[in-house]
């Protein structure tokens, strides 16, 4: 019962390919940039799938759009800005660092840091004062040694 959402998308969109042969740009460097950008953009129809993987027609449109802009000579950042302007932050699989997302980005590292500090701030073993045995423990010990 895995990836139900993805399965749904797969079925809704019908069988097609992610990247189609006719989409591929002639310039390999440009194509590589297009693929890298595609991997960071979410397909709007599907759940949690990048447009690079998605088979939905809308994803194809978006892939073509990116390539159009790249061919025009725009930088990666310009293309991304254009796409975000048009479709909103929702399309970014890597959310931008904003006042709304700093918790998302910083929590893991903050907790790791706090945990590590906690771990190393433990009082070192040597300085730990030995607690004397209680009366009950002493008598237990004597019994055991006899």
């Amino acid at each position, binding site marked *: 019962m895995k990836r139900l*959402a993805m399965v749904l998308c797969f079925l809704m969109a019908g069988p097609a390919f992610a990247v189609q042969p006719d989409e591929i740009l002639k310039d390999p460097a440009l194509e590589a940039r297009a693929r890298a950008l595609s991997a960071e953009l979410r397909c709007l129809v599907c759940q949690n799938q990048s447009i690079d993987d998605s088979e939905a027609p809308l994803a194809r449109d978006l892939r073509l759009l990116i390539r159009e802009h790249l061919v025009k000579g725009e930088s990666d950042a310009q293309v991304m800005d254009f796409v975000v302007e048009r479709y909103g932050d929702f399309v970014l699989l890597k959310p931008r660092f904003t006042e709304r997302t700093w918790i998302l980005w910083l929590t893991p590292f903050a907790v790791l840091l706090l945990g590590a500090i906690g771990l190393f701030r433990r009082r070192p073993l040597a300085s730990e004062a030995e607690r004397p045995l209680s009366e009950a423990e002493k008598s237990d010990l004597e019994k055991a040694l006899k």
Partner: protein
Amino acid sequence: MIAELGHFALILALGVALFQFVVPLVGAQRGDPALMRAAIPAALIQFLLIAAAFAALMHAYVISDFSVQNVFENSHSEKPLIYKISGVWSNHEGSLILWVLILALFGAAVAVFGNNLPLELKARVLAVQGSIGVAFLAFSVFTSDPFTRLDPPPIEGNGLNPLLQDPALAFHPPFLYAGYVGLSIAFAFAVAALIDGKVDAAWARWVRPWTLAAWIFLTIGVAMGSWWAYYTLGWGGFWFWDPVENSSFMPWLVATALLHSAIVVEKRNALKIWTVFLSILAFSLSLLGTFLVRSGVLTSVHAFAVSPLRGIFVLGILGVFIGGSLALFAWRAPGLKAGGLFAPVSREGGLVANNLLLCVAALTVFIGTLYPLALQILTEDKISVGPPYFNITFGPIVLALLILVPIGPFLAWKRGDLGLSLRRLWLGLAAAAAVALIVLVIDVRGPWLAPVGLALGAWLIVGAALELAQKIGLFRVPLGTSLSRLAGLPGASFGMALAHGGLGIVVVGIIAMSLWKVEVIAAMKPGETRQVGAYTVTFQGEAPLTGANYTGRAGSFLVTRGGETVVTLVSEKREYRPSRRTITQVGLNQTLAGDLYVVMGDSTADGGRAIRMYFNPLVNFIWLGAFSMFLGGAFSLADRRFRVGAPRRAPALGTVPAE
């Protein structure tokens, strides 16, 4: 009639579970052995009743009784028998029955095999199990009854989603559920210990085999899920950071942490409170996973509202169990005696670092999965969190963990010597450096992660081997002595080596596959040839295809390498009845060195076919490594020392063996 009997058995099971929850608990509080012992037959009867209900549902599927709504909606008479069987748990109602069945099975196992548990502890553990049973049986009976009849009965069923018609997927949920639900035992032990107010080495020994069993099942379940995604979804990925995957990954991470911290409790009587907390956390995440998948909240917040009763019910279960156990923890844990002191650099310290990193890794998955949901509910803002986020956050955390894995076992208990441990690991460091160097020479302009990742893999594998070699004194004592020591090693020692080495193998597979994958996308006509890595692939043409409940087209591809024929691969496009849904069957040539992966796509305008081909180097290392980890778990589980019930609670002054 049989469906009604199943329904009846399910309702009876709810009653028995209620009994199992209340009576032994009261008995344990009052110190009444008769009431406490009642837990044992109750657990067995509960299991038998649920098994009967499950069998009744399966019967309806096997004979294709479409008067049962659940069968009508999810099955079809033409389906092969194995998918009629797996159809039982392919849907919400049926999978819930499987869930409670496995829960009751674990409960019955504790009742039968837990002979050496003190009666009070056993009664409390079974009572907690009973309470979970009550919650989920009530969920099933009141909101998700699988036995509802249709009148008049339809002639034919709707069929199963064709993507689910696959052996790996058909049998992946039972393993995953066994893992999820198996963690309920650790949870029950933790809650029982909190009520009891006593956590000691014996408690940890009792908990560990159950946690280990759950961990083994989770490992298989997660690996099977990723294997299925790899060869079914048709674009060659193996992990997508999809919320449903994440739901099974979080409990795995925490269960792994729990396995390690339980060792510290067992051997050193330290980290007790933390271990109890982890037991609660691991099962809480299992419940959360069940909630996320079952309530539909993931697909969209609105799907949740479509059947609000179910969502609210699971949310209620979640609140009661997680909130309740954490409240109990907050109330009782301060009363637990902390034990065993240790220096930061020590075996215990290493295991604490392991726990910290694993838990932060789980937290990262958690926040990445749930943050968009929370943000949307609170602010209406919609954001997406996908693989790039996890690569940046989860990646480095796990990288740090992997570096530490081989060092931990070389540190002494209580106070370790990092320099000494590293000197003993010099061969591992050398192997890692050599691998990094070789990778740099071969692929000097490649991504930096390639040498780093593969070196890390070598570090883990060699480190695991060295640890074993150290234990048997290889090359320090005569070979014969070493071999006889090897034969005498406890299963857990092999278990650790296999699991840690397996982790290294997984890392190698993931890195190689992710960074060196060769992809060729082309429009090909019959007779045309393309080069994919070292292979030459010729599209030979296509033929019509007929299966049990589908028709389609099969394209065949001649694969040669250096002029010699390797194999003929077939990739199919199938259209299933009655849904008319189409799926693609991947043509796959698996070797240890890597897979050739061929997918036939749509017809192109000029009369060819869109063909997508990959060479995925070392990709099978991912599942081989997972298998090695599973094997490690199995070896540990077989270790006599941890066998269920084998250890007895130590007397007040009993010694704990140092190793």
